[in-house]
């Protein structure tokens, strides 16, 4: 197990490396430069800015400078491998590290609450639907699930705003900073994901409760509750855990639609503005951050498999 984990962690390095190359290549394929303006800057200034940021170098050199493999125009080495994600071309007073430090906590808080809501609603709903298959409960929970899949966040968000903020006045319409401002965006995010979790839980639960070892557990006289919680649910959780990995990465690093609807200062908007601003270090920073979260989350998911199902062994 220990060796498996170490090998997987070592594998993360080439994966992130390949992702960094692909992202850098695509970001450089977008025509235009970061200093193009509606009213063009004097060419001397653009040339100086390009020189300052090393953008006059060939693309491969820009990449190695960024990663920290080669000396930068300023004569330093500091790059991604030393934890320095570089400057931002569009907001000159902040580095990419500053941007992530300022906005990631907001997105992460929102994402974690949303994830809790998603699991908290989705899992019980799926379990109840499976245990009482084809009953009223089943139809209710599958109705909720299909509602969650069919009403995306960018429809649900405004509807919640109109209903709970403007009509009933329970919550503020938008903004960030207090608990009551977090409820509607977290619900918008969470409900969408809870639908996926509920369907998956129901499906895998239905499969698991027909397994032989469940009959064995019943036959040896265990109470129905123990059979369901200790034996069935634990195994039924495996497919659910699989999607929790990508879901975690996506929710934590910011979901720009919900952040935009509820005017939340999260990281999500930088995924778009960095690309439209040709701000390559920010594009790279957000992409690498997301990919790192994704790879780590998937590793954690794979490790939990072994705890959930003793038949799964890693070597």
């Amino acid at each position, binding site marked *: 197990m220990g060796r498996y984990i170490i090998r997987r962690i070592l594998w993360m390095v080439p994966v992130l490396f390949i992702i960094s190359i692909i*992202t850098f290549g695509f970001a450089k394929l977008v025509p235009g430069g970061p200093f193009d303006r509606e009213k063009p800057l004097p060419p001397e200034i653009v040339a100086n800015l390009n020189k300052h940021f090393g953008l006059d170098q060939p693309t491969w050199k820009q990449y190695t400078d960024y990663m920290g493999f080669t000396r930068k125009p300023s004569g330093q080495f500091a790059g991604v491998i030393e934890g320095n994600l570089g400057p931002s071309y569009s907001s000159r007073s902040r580095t990419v590290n500053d941007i992530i430090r300022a906005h990631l906590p907001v997105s992460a808080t929102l994402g974690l609450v949303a994830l809790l809501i998603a699991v908290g609603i989705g899992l019980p709903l799926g379990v109840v639907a499976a245990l009482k298959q084809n009953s009223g409960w089943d139809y209710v929970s599958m109705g909720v699930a299909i509602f969650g*899949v069919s*009403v995306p966040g*960018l429809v649900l968000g405004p509807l919640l705003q109109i209903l709970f903020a403007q009509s009933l006045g329970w919550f503020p319409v938008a903004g960030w900073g207090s608990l009551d401002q977090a409820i509607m965006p977290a619900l918008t995010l969470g409900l969408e994901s809870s639908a996926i979790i509920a369907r*998956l839980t129901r499906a895998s639960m239905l499969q698991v409760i027909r397994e032989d070892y469940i009959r064995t557990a019943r036959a040896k006289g265990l109470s129905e509750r123990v059979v369901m919680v200790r034996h069935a649910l634990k195994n039924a959780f495996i497919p659910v855990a699989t999607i929790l990995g990508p879901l975690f990465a996506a929710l934590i690093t910011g979901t720009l*639609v919900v952040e935009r609807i509820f005017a939340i200062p999260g990281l999500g908007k930088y*995924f778009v503005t960095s690309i439209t601003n040709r701000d390559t270090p920010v594009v790279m920073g957000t992409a690498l951050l997301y990919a790192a979260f994704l790879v780590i989350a998937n590793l954690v998911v794979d490790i939990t498999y072994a705890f959930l199902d003793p038949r799964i062994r890693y070597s």
Partner: protein
Amino acid sequence: MTAQERAAKRLADGRPMEGEGQQKITNLWADAWRRLIRNRAAMLGGVIIIVLILIAIFADRVAPYHYAVGDSNDNYMVPLWITRVLPGNMAAYAKIGNKFAVGADYLGRDLLSRVIYGARVSLPVGFIGAFTALLIGLVYGCIAGYYGGRTDNMMMRIVDIMYAFPTMLLIILLMAIFKTSFGGAQKPGTPAYNFNQISRAVDHFLGLQGGGMLFIFMGIGITAWMGIARLARGQILSIKQKEFIEASRMIGANDLRIIVRHILPNIMGPILVSVTLSIPSYILTEVFLSFIGLGVDPPTPSWGSMISEGVGALRSFPHEVLPPSIVLAITMFSFNFLGDGLRDALDPRMKGTS
């Protein structure tokens, strides 16, 4: 021809053996069709989708106004009954009038007409996006699964890397590249110009004046094929060892014939279900792109850009966000119901799984 060869040929062609002919042949597809018709939710979804398609085709006859023409004196005009339903005191400051069925947007354009024309964006994205993803994924998955070995290994590693790549970021990057490289005015004679002409032809074919739909199709096609490829490969792996494949190889059928005539018909069920169930996600991708301003070019209406405009004006004019939101939700419900129904019909054991 020996008896064995004849039997192999019959097997390979999927015809019944002697003695089996009298038995009533129940076709998988006929069975599935019967089950699908009995599913009321799926049928309702199907009917709504057909209505939506008809509305999209005949948009110029159905829509009361042109989607891009508005009088700025009518901006945010709203019928009186809507102000009564919606919260706030809209009647006090909004322009009240019955000129538009569900009101007008910030430029005085009819919201209903824009939603109707928006179907010409969303439905093609759903269908053509699904078709592109199916085509790329099927060819890729078939090659990987059928030839196996090192080819398979390498092709699937590429898919793994694509999976680790944030899809949202990739599609935003692709749209930025397409739009700035090929969009707008280009010099005649260059490849970008030719590409731009193709894009215009596609928009024209879909009954839109501009919009850049080709780029959206390409963006979805490039980012959405991996799931289909994996599914197709897995299905082929399980079927290519079967005796009837061996039989057809024995009588000298070439690889292409084996894949197209003997493998594909047997794996189409699960793939068709997966494609149908992913149509809503393609529609949502376009809505998302237009929401962040990288989708269709204005003034072509997209439900996504309309929702984005509506969210901006939500506090004062909540009526603007509702029509595109409601129609989008209805469309998503319909496709999900039909997709679920199709899955249940093709594989009753899978009922209720996602």
